[in-house]
């Protein structure tokens, strides 16, 4: 479904992605985890056409997509829920949801999909006519995901969907994602929160300093002793391993992100 090869991105003289390879199969939920600044958001923004790549190749459904405009990618079945949600806060919940179907013209099916999203997130139905800016953070996240689903994407890109949300809301969000997988949705999710990502995903890539440090099935990664080192980039910078190891130990013990 998605094949990323040697993807390179830089902002001016700063290299954000240095040759990233990721493959996502149809119907898979794949997580990219890594600390702040690892290049995860850059990766998703590049896939969605917002950030320009410097080198490499990306194929989506067998077609090269690098350099395509965001609106073209949206029309081809790729949907990004960006970090910070980016709902249209001055517009109503209804208008936000309707905007998700911008690329579609099949009115009846859009109405049915809207109904499905409202059934999935009933709170959006209660607040359907209200300003989206008045929703709580969790409700805004549901709106952002619901809006993305109205495009009937083949591939959903999620940037930190659990950031700043209560655990119950996170569960609700991931339950929705699982339900959609049954219908053939493929998901690439970026998370700082290791536990949530590994619990949710089939496979995961650990990203550090703009490169993939580790890859494997979620269950394997969870027990892997090298995981912490990879997460903190210690593999790339020997000598800082001890400190990073301590921090990772604390983090893992508390079950929160550092």
């Amino acid at each position: 479904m998605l094949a990323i090869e040697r993807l390179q991105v830089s902002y001016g003289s700063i290299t954000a992605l240095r040759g990233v390879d990721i493959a996502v199969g149809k119907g898979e939920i794949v997580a990219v985890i890594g600390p702040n600044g690892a290049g995860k958001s850059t990766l998703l923004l590049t896939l969605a056409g917002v950030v320009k790549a410097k080198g490499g190749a990306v194929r989506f459904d067998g077609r090269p997509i690098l350099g395509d405009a965001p609106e073209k990618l949206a029309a081809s079945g790729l949907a990004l829920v960006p970090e910070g949600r980016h709902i249209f806060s001055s517009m109503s919940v209804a208008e936000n949801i309707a905007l998700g179907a911008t690329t579609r013209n099949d009115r009846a099916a859009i109405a049915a999909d809207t109904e499905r999203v409202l059934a999935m997130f009933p709170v959006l139905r209660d607040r359907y006519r209200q300003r989206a800016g008045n929703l709580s953070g969790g409700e805004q996240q549901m709106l952002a995901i619901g809006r993305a689903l109205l495009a009937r994407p083949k591939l959903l890109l999620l940037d930190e969907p659990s950031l700043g949300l209560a655990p119950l809301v996170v569960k609700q969000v991931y339950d929705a994602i699982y339900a959609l997988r049954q219908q053939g949705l493929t998901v690439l999710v970026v998370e700082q929160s290791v536990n949530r990502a590994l619990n949710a995903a089939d496979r995961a890539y650990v990203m550090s300093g703009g490169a993939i440090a580790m890859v494997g099935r979620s269950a394997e990664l969870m027990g892997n002793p090298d995981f912490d080192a990879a997460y903190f980039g210690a593999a790339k910078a020997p000598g800082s391993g001890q400190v990073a190891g301590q921090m990772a130990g604390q983090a893992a013990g508390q079950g929160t992100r550092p």
Partner: protein
Amino acid sequence: MIVVQNLIDAISLGAVYALAALGIGLIFSIMRLINFAHGELIMVGGFVIYSLAGQPMLVMAIAAFIVVTILALGMERIAFRPLRRASPPTLLIASFAVSYFLQHVVLILFGSRPMGVDFLSSLGESVEFAGLRVPLLQLIAIVATVVLMVGLAFFFRASRIGVQMRAAAEDFTMARLLGVKADRVIAVAFALSGILASFVSLYLVAQTGSVSYKMGVNMVLIAFVASVIGGMGSLTGAALGGFLVGLVSVSLQAYLPEELRPYRDAFVFLLFIAFLLWRPQGLLVRQASERV
């Protein structure tokens, strides 16, 4: 009675300022471009009417709509689309370039002297009711503005492209991520600004009975002031700002001492500076949304 008379003057002048300010505000809200060449859209509309002198009124008006709308689309395509990713200051400078270019093309073609046009001069006559004498042109300006504003409001609420334009105005990148076509919403915004500008052309030519290559300059400056007062990026604000500037201008005209009246605009801009010190973000501002 004189107060009511002044109020009608203020509303009608404010209505025209509001139309001009909406043209500026519409482009700014979507592109973060302060389009000073908007004045030249108004000016070219005037010269279309001048060039068609003697034709039926409706022909002149429709020709002005069409030419100005095409010109608006043309300036977007040629001057502003290549600069889409440029910073707001670059866009601003580009709009000055377009503005001067169009002024000087008209200067070469028609010369620098203002020229008289007989257009809707019958509307200069006043109708009397309830003891008030109101020029027909003022009434028509008010009615036309109200109709245009209601139409615009309906367009932004009910049409698909209108809703997409509001989304693009709030968060352009997010709108594109949902499949909103950047080229299309920007083109529609320029087309609408052209339609608004051509209405201002009709009013100015009918009001002053003349055209000159500089005729758009003052109007665009006032429209800019109005949209800043309302709050850049807010269309309701732009309209409100237009009416307020109209009210202030007419009040100064009416109540300033006789010998100061020729300097009315200096007082308008003085008040504008005072306003900016008090409320630099404008009256109706939405929180600027963070861009993806």
